């Protein structure tokens, strides 16, 4: 069934990685998976690292390995704000594995409740999610 397309923009601090019309956007919040269709109610959400899927018209799906960030839907358009977003083909499995190891080690050595620890927890979650996308 054809759905109405709506504009989606994916922004990172390094620039725009996607700007186009999609029929459905799917990502993940702290509550679980989230799918957004056209005419969604206004929404502001914190996103968890995951595979971002953008279903384009004609059944094509564009995917990104997406870091944590924010999603805002307003006036029938969606804005995804994330620290990093990579095409699955650009992911380097061994690089991600070594980063994950490094983050896990740092996490163990870090002080309970510190800002550093939260940072490493964030890294671990991010690289785990990226690895899942890489294994796709």
């Amino acid at each position: 069934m054809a759905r109405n397309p709506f504009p989606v923009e994916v922004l990172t601090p390094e620039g725009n990685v996607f700007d186009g019309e999609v029929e459905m956007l799917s990502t993940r919040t702290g509550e679980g998976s989230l799918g957004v269709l056209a005419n969604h109610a206004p929404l502001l959400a914190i996103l968890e690292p995951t595979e971002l899927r953008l279903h384009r018209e004609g059944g094509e799906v564009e995917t990104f390995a997406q870091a944590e960030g924010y999603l805002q839907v307003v006036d029938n358009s969606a804005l995804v704000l994330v620290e990093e977003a990579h095409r699955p083909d650009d992911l380097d499995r061994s690089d991600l594995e070594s980063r994950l190891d490094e983050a896990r080690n740092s996490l163990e050595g870090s002080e309970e409740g510190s800002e550093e620890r939260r940072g490493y927890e964030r890294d671990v979650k991010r690289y785990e999610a990226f690895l899942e996308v890489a294994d796709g």
Partner: protein
Amino acid sequence: MASSSSLSERIDSVKNVKQITRAMEMVAAARLRRAEQRIEALRPYADALRRMTRRAVEGAQSLPDIPLLEEHDSIDRVGLLLVTGDRGLAGAFNSQIIRAGERRARELRGEGLEPRWYVIGAKGAASLGFRGYELDGTYSGFTDRPAYANAREVGQHIVSTYTEENVDRAEMFYNGYISPMSQIVRHETLLPLQQADFLGGDDDEEEDGDESDEGGEGTGGKGGEEGPDHSRALWIYEPEPGEILRQLAPDYVEISIYRAMLESTASEHGARMTAMRSASDNADEMIDDLTMQANRERQAAITQEIMEVVSGAEATTG
């Protein structure tokens, strides 16, 4: 004769120097263009983060406790974050930041406050270390092309020193990028986050001050005069707007540092380009002077020889 050959040696060596400075100028120009593009690329992200913050503030019934927004009861220590570069040969780029930081440190000491140092860039760290300052944080190896992750590392450190009350305020000094020819030293307060900046945005003139008083009545009489944002109730927040704000606050610090790093990088390449251009121009001038001098000496030598030949001939015929 000896002096003319030493002159040509000097000309050669100045020419070599000029080749190097020209090459450095061209490298700096290419890097400057890339750095400018990255400043442009960040803008939409930073603007969107600002808009989302404003949205979360509107959604929050009352402001949550966000440590980064709260002023400490007593101000004793002030963190100074200096953004310098890893390399020199860029005119006053590094030294003007160090000077500004030292001036501020003197002011703070005059007010009975203790400055704590946090330095981005190997040049700044080396030069402050040399002057005997104790540095609480040094970050280097990336100033040619800073990544967001670098800003995050610095941001996390500054945020945790603030929340753990090791500093009671954090200020940042960096070279603001105006044009390839001009950079100015910018001095910004990082923490506590300025309520007006973080929550209000630039140009919106919202009456934040009265909101808490009116809030009680406002929630009672929903659908009343809520201003332009009558759709407040329809927004979905995941999680609560207060939680979203709590996560946005450190991101806001990171973005501010990242923007400063990018501007500093563009400024550094601009300053190096300008410094190398004037070095090349000086070399040109020097080459002209030396060549002129060499020509004059060569001419004098030739004249001398002719005179000898002529006077010799005259002596034999006469």
